[in-house]
């Protein structure tokens, strides 16, 4: 459903013939920027990270919730003293949330922010 690849599709070229294309108001030409290689690259760099990672954490959360609801015996299995599998998996949800946050932070700094800065510089 969602436009996944982020790549330019044939539908994109309709925009060129649209009447609005001829007289250009001041300000950046968004249709041209959208089709530029730099922007397409930025979009794909962003989406290639956020979509899979979103699916990943959502699946992991959902799996955890299903375990808690339907596999209570497994979750109640004691590991050390009174600490059971459920508690450890729950705490791992905290850990994974923090790790994903830090991972995205460094990815955005390295891969996204420089591209955004370059695009902004070129078009303003």
């Amino acid at each position: 459903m969602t436009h996944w690849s982020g790549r330019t599709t044939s539908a994109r070229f309709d925009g060129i013939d649209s009447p609005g294309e001829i007289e250009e108001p001041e300000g950046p030409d968004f249709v041209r920027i959208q089709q530029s290689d730099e922007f397409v690259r930025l979009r794909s760099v962003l989406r290639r990270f956020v979509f899979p990672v979103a699916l990943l954490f959502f699946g992991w959360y959902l799996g955890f919730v299903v375990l808690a609801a339907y596999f209570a015996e497994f979750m109640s299995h004691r590991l050390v003293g009174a600490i059971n599998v459920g508690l450890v998996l729950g705490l791992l949800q905290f850990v994974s949330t923090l790790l994903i946050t830090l991972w995205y932070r460094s990815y955005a700094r390295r891969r996204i922010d420089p591209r955004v800065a370059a695009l902004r510089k070129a078009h303003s």
Partner: protein
Amino acid sequence: MSTDVGSPGLNMAVFGLFVVVTLVIVANVNRRHATANDYFTAGGAFGGGKNGLALSGDFLSAASFLGIAGAIAIHGYDGFLFSIGFLVAWLVNLLLIAELVRNTGRFTMGDVLSYRMRARPVRAAAATSTLVISFFYMLAQMAGAGGVVALLLGVHDGTGQAVVITVVGVVMMLYVLVGGMRGTTWVQIIKAAMLVLCVALMTVFLLGKFGFDLSALLRQAAANNVKGERILDPGGMFGRSGTSKLNFISLALALVLGAAGLPHVLMRFYTVPNAVQARRSVIWAVGTMTVFYLATLIIGYGASALVGSRRILSATGGQNSAAPLLAYEIGGTLLLGVVAAVAFATILAVVAGLTLTASASFAHDVYANIFKRGRANPGSEVRVARLTAVVVGGLAIAGGILANGQNVAFLVGLAFAFAASANLSTLLYSLFWRRFNTSGTLWGMYGGLVSCLALVAVSPVVSGRPWSLFPSVDFAWFPLSNPGIVSIPVSFVLGFLGTVLSRDKGDERKQAEMEVRSLTGLTPS
């Protein structure tokens, strides 16, 4: 049973001090002639760190603090599942929502949704959804205020509680009217700092008491709970029947997907200057909330260990009294006073944030863009917003007094289900799906809202059970208390169908503008 502990006078004094200090700050950061930008977004001038704290302040309600700690103390592990859902939810904001919303909108969720659509119907839908969600969420907070009053100030009769609820409402309105977004943000920052500091200190103290041996704490918690060892395992709260398991999954879905659709959270992405600061805000919020929700786990089990489930349940306020009773147990009257003040500050600040959001949506989406077609002068927009804030505040007070003592805990889960159903689907489509159009937006939003409302109306929360709103009649045929598992997919499917079944191809130029703008922050001239 009189388990009133601590001194109501001291509790009130600490809370009074908080109110005075915050009001002085709010009055001082206020600009005399606030522009719409000042009033709605504090000029977008907050840094990511401060705004992240304020985000936690907006998000961590009394339900999070007293409710989760109490749920863990009484039911054990199942209460912890709330903490996890509320925290993981922030990844949706971090990865998919915060930066793009910051770049695309100005004041409200309607700005983003109507960007490339026919503006008036979409703004009307966005405002409807914002007002409905704010109302339900606010009602839950205000109704809870009555219980907290009884518990902490020793006010037990209905009239006395009504007076206190009114005072809380009036102070909240003062924050919003005098301080606008700048003042309200500072209230959130102070509240979040107090709340997190308070629970972190309690947690360290508790762990220290058990020699930093989590297992020992858990064993003691089980020993002092009537449910015994079962509080360490899943199933204590949600039960083991097929329906209750499904209900739990439904709630879990609403929690994790709802945070990214809450209008007062979305609005807080506009109070920073750019997308990088919006990202920093969420990162700070995740950090703060990790500490907070870990602390609720320890505080919840700690309350069971040191106070015991019997004493908690027999106290005024029942389950909600777990954290305050624990505070009294470990820190005496003074710590109880601090926790009481923090609990009040929490209700106050969350309701203030909701009021500001609701009034901004009415003034900006309905008045300025629907009635005046975008040609309202900015001064009148702020005036309308202030007026709306007074009306909303009045409704909150009245609703709080009427709902006082009712079982309205489901309202929070419901507000999350609304947010996840009506707002998240349309926001995601709008930001990531090129083909998405006006009719898809309307189908998605109204479909999500209506299916949520309809399912709740025929669910056990409204009728058919002893704890329902109308226990004497029974027209409940939908077995789940939380509609999320149905209504969230419904809104995604309707948003999709509404789009592909309509001939509207959308505005290509606007789509290009929105997409480029959302990723880069470049604005038209």
